[in-house]
């Protein structure tokens, strides 16, 4: 029962409402409340999912605004500004071996709250989201159709992997490669996009030996493949 008149909640209920879900999970486990724990885990997922979709749409809307008012070059500049912060993350990747890099990339993708597939062959790791949790989900949910009408980049260019009518949120994937190459000469991962965006997963490859990254991944952005030091 609430403590006073005209109140919906007790002091304790109000306090509980504000506790971070991750902490509630830890408390429920310690108290041996198995079903409550599972319920709280799903709640944490829903909370994150809600905000994930909002931020992704917000970013897509801002990029669409810039594209429609300022054009291709502006989208490139704005994304370049936004992804400069990635160069710090790239340094972290380069300080660990390729196996750990694949684990880090998979963790990053799991942040999109979707399943991830990780494959390994002799030369490389391939990490992908079968249903891309960021742009892919937005395409599947008709974010680029009416009434939302997010922009597609009309003309083929670096940011669109040379494709026409490219969903604008996906342009950041190209920028991830460009920033890494600009800063250090070579990418941390390289991306193979599907024929039609949203119709299949984008494949992110991490080469165990960066010297084995095929030259085509540099050329598509107008970069030259550098002579690399052999990694030990």
């Amino acid at each position: 029962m609430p403590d006073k008149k005209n109140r919906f909640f007790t002091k304790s209920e109000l306090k509980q409402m504000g506790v971070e879900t991750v902490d509630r999970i830890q408390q429920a486990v310690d108290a041996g409340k198995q079903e409550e724990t599972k319920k709280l885990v799903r709640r944490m997922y829903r909370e994150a999912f809600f905000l994930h979709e909002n931020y992704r749409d917000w970013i897509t809307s801002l990029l669409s605004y810039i594209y429609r008012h300022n054009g291709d070059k502006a989208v490139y500049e704005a994304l370049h500004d936004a992804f400069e912060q990635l160069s710090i993350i790239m340094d972290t990747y380069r300080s660990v071996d390729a196996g750990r890099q694949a684990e880090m990339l998979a963790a990053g993708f799991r942040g999109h709250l979707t399943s991830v597939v990780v494959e390994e062959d002799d030369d490389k790791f391939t990490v992908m989201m079968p249903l891309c949790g960021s742009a892919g989900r937005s395409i599947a949910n008709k974010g680029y159709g009416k009434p939302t009408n997010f922009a597609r980049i009309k003309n083929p260019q670096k940011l669109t992997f040379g494709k026409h009518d490219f969903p604008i949120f996906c342009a950041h994937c190209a920028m991830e490669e460009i920033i890494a190459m600009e800063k250090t000469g070579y990418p941390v991962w390289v991306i193979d996009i599907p024929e039609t965006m949203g119709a299949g997963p984008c494949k992110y490859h991490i080469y165990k030996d960066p010297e084995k990254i095929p030259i085509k991944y540099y050329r598509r952005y107008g970069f030259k493949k550098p002579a690399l030091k052999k990694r030990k």
Partner: protein
Amino acid sequence: MKDREKRSFTMAELEEMGTPTVDLVQQAIDAGELEKAKKLARRMFREFSSLHDFWVSEVTTLLSYIYRHNGDEAVFKAVSECLEELSNAADAYRSQDSGRQAQMLAAGLRAHLTPVVVEEDAEKFTVMMSPCSSGGKLISNKKYETSKNLAKIKKPQRITFGRGDFPIYCANCAMENIVPMEKTGYPIWISDVAEKLGETPCKLHIYKDPDKIPAKYYERFGLKKPAPKSTK
């Protein structure tokens, strides 16, 4: 055991790397591996936290780009387009009593992965992030000082709550008030911005009776408080 030479991971390890953490937590609980479940819940928190912070920064950079190239009015328009969906959220909120509205708002703020404080008095609920882990975190981490890409809005205006040199990310809070008011006549919640942004929390109020929302919360956005309506 790895399946083949030159491999870092077994097939089972690769598969586990790709499984959404929410599913791994559930599996650990079902298997009675409670310490593992706690650890995985914290991992899930970190996975989304990294993306959350990256996207907050990306949103701020894109808004800053628009501000620098297109000016005050463009920022207003761009943020307004991003938050258009809030008029739908207003309907979802209003279909519930104010107690449930407070719970919904608290859940939305918990998604920012920070503790939330919820207070109730006879007239209203007050919900706040303590500390704010979106706009507030950018300020307390001195991102506006250390990144050349993040802007403050110089001139006092509606989306700055009438303040000068206003951190651009925080403009969304004003727009969250404005969009429902313009579309439906009433706000869902109203914001009292902290005196010192990033140091103390902004307070979001949900009035139990919308007619009791003080006129000043309309007037600061150049809007007129609507004639009282019966809530019964």
